[in-house]
């Protein structure tokens, strides 16, 4: 069978999943955020309304007069997605409508500029699932540091130079802050583990109340790795302990993806240009490498991430594939 006679339009229509973001969007090659957003909507289904903060996701999906979205979607500003979502939810309540409200934002919109609105929405307990697509910098404006940028990563506003080793500060522990709002469900997920991501979206969707999901999504441009390495890099973030995969309910830790075999952080850092300066023959660079390893070790310790053997849902087993697929159903 030659591909020329395939009716792609028909085939696309018949896909056994909900493609809440369809093709033709303008994301860069290998964009982790584009993938994460589609995965989220696959699990929520079409009965949702999205409030989207300013950022790459918003820009690459909606080059007017086109849109890649198949769900009702509203972009207002950078800092107010959570508040806009709260307003949508209030309206639905007033009208007796049932659709779930989602708020989408990048790490800048979540950790930084929109944090106030997010905190308010959580505190008021709106029935909103807030999804933070965390690619650890302001990518839309060209890779500036955010409070999610990892320690020692170079960005255009935390460059490595003669006197600086990239970002001086730490990555903000947003999920703990969110969980401290005593909301029913807050979790972290990664594009490298789609099954786990879907499970967490389904859990959040089942809850009537404010929920939060932070998804680690590589940005090949901003992190400086090849486009095909997005999944591999995200996987290493989890396997090294730098990005702990946890679930918090009412502030209590209720789930953590165990790490079967802790990989050294250099495995994760090496493919990324944003950490290139750490591999110079330089005492400060060596110290920062040790620092990052200590941060990973700390995560593993506080969340007790190191597994005790083989676990089908651990960092090695969670995305085991089977003949005929295990990613749908």
């Amino acid at each position, binding site marked *: *069978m030659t*591909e020329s006679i*395939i009716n*792609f339009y028909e*085939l*696309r229509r018949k*896909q*056994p999943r909900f*493609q809440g*973001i*369809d*093709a*033709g*969007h*303008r*994301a860069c*090659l*290998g*964009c*982790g955020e*584009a*993938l994460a957003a*589609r*995965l989220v909507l696959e699990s929520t289904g079409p009965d949702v309304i999205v409030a989207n903060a300013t950022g790459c996701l918003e820009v690459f*999906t*909606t*080059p*007017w*007069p*086109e*849109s*890649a*979205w*198949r*769900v009702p979607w509203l972009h207002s500003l950078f800092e107010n997605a959570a508040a806009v979502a709260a307003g949508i939810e209030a309206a639905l309540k007033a009208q007796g409508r049932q659709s779930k409200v989602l708020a989408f934002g990048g790490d800048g919109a979540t950790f930084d500029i929109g944090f106030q609105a997010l905190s308010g929405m959580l505190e008021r307990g709106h029935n909103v699932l807030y999804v933070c697509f965390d690619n650890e910098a302001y990518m839309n404006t060209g890779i500036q540091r955010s409070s999610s940028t990892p320690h020692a990563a170079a960005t255009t506003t935390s460059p490595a130079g003669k006197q600086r080793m990239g970002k001086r500060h730490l990555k903000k522990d947003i999920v703990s802050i969110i969980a401290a709002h005593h909301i029913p469900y807050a979790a972290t997920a990664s*594009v490298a583990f*789609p099954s786990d991501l879907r499970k967490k979206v389904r859990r959040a969707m089942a809850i009537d109340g404010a929920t939060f999901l932070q998804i680690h999504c590589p940005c*090949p441009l901003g992190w400086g790795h*090849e*486009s*095909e*390495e*997005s*999944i*591999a890099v995200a*996987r290493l973030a989890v396997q090294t302990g730098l990005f702990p995969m946890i679930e918090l309910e009412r502030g209590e830790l209720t789930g953590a993806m165990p790490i079967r075999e802790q990989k050294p952080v250099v495995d994760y850092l090496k493919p990324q240009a944003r950490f290139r300066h750490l591999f110079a023959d330089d005492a400060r660079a060596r110290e920062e490498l040790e620092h990052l390893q200590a941060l990973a070790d700390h995560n593993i310790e506080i969340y007790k991430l190191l597994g005790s053997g*083989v676990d*089908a849902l651990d960092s*090695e*087993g969670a*995305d*085991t*594939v*089977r*003949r*005929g*697929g*295990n*990613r*749908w159903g």
Partner: protein
Amino acid sequence: MSDVKYTRGGCARPATSLQFHTGSWRVQRPVHRHGAAPCHVACPAGENPQAYLARIEEGDEQAAWRELVTINPLPAITGRVCPHFCESACNRATYDSAISIHGVERYLGDKALAHDWHYAVPARAVGAARVAIVGAGPAGLAAAYHLTLLGYQAVMFEANPEPGGTLRGAIPEYRLPRGVLQVEMQRVLDIGIEFRANTRLGRDVSLEELRQSHAAVFLGPGTQRARYWHVDGIVQRDLHQALDLLKAWNTVGKLSMPASVAVVGAGNTALDTARILRRAGVASVHLVAHKALPEQAASGDDVMPVHPREIAQALEEGVQIHPHRGIRRLLLRGERVVGVEMVHMKKLRGADGVYARVAFEGTETVLHVEQVIPAIGQTVDGVGFDALVADNGFVSVNAQGAVTAGYQGVFAGGDAIGKGGTVTRAIGDGRRAAAAIHGFLQGREWAASVLAPVTFAQLNVNYFEPAPRPEDPVLALKKRIGEKEVVGGIEQQAVLQEAQRCFSCGNCFACDNCWTLCPDTAVLKTQELAADGAHYVFDYDYCKGCGICAQECPCGFIAMEAEL
């Protein structure tokens, strides 16, 4: 939505981005590229284990067996005796441990015997061309089988009363029970093959007669003549050949031997001979091998060409192996052996670049044995077709299996062509010769396809769980007497697990990875269009060529091609 003003506030219709073809950004494109599984490439018979493992994983064991016997009609036999090159090549070995392909093969073979599954043989046309097959060993049986599947009338000529060749003569029953051998071979003959027992080429029928009365001839005579063995021209008077001892043991079941014996050789015949000598009551059995034990081998070429398991069992059974040794001198009292002088030797590359065995002076030791049995290989006994046997003692053939001595329509295979004497290789020779004969009779040349195996680096093993392979049950040492089969088969549960462990190297197994992980929704899932064996198609209108699908394909089935 007709009253919606799309110019107001920058409003847009759902999924209208589809109007924009991001495929124009692409400088490289993903393509589905079937790669050859290393097990498939490595199998001298040409089996494709991946294909039958897939059927097992789908829960259809009979379909798996059918897949298997499209290549090899004798899986219960090869599952037991093949040194399984497939497993040495298996990419899973680099990850945790190779798939127990032989275990699965044997399981399917035994299951078919137990359930009396039959080959699917197409009805033969009246007046089908007749093809003569000389020798009912594995090569001849495979040739007859495949010729029958291709619609020919196969006629087998066997010097012995029963079929089997090497399988019957040289392989002891503790490795290959006669029942299995008998039934599986009979099932082959039962597909409509004419079997002429006690008919020896050169004695009862001539090659010319066969050529006259058949459209083509396949020779699978095996190697019946022991290589001439001596030490500096000296041979003891009562020289026994290993193959003769094996035959005698296999038919009579006992041997008369002194209490200490040295067997010379490094292959299966040598090892089997040593082991039957132990079973026959010889107290002290030495194996003098010029090659290395598996754990000490410097290269694949240097190691004893037998399955490590067999070596381990022989050691357990009390065979004393002297690796990297040669016999320098026979210690004779009159014409009787009282011992041998052994010396350390290794194959080394000389100044001329040629490998040669070098004995190391000063390492000589004396082994006190009362008999020395050479097992250094056999060559073709060419009575009746001498003209086809080359100086090296083997029948020379071309890539298609046709003899090169100028006899049109005559093909040969198996041990007789001297390409490494394994049952599996012989079966492959038979199959390839059948295809070549078919081509010859249709007037076109047949060529085997040569594929590069998929390498471990081409796979993405992050998506596989480590799991150990099941070990074959082995008969306790004290129970290993007489003809009892030493190695058992694996169970159904283990077989299913092996099927699930298969990496599916170079072939799509519909895991959904590409479909799930494409950031651009440019991979579409398809059932009905999966004609190329993939279950997905690339929508190049949108694919930007990021390469994630290729990188994350567990099977190495997706390659990126430059596009400019």
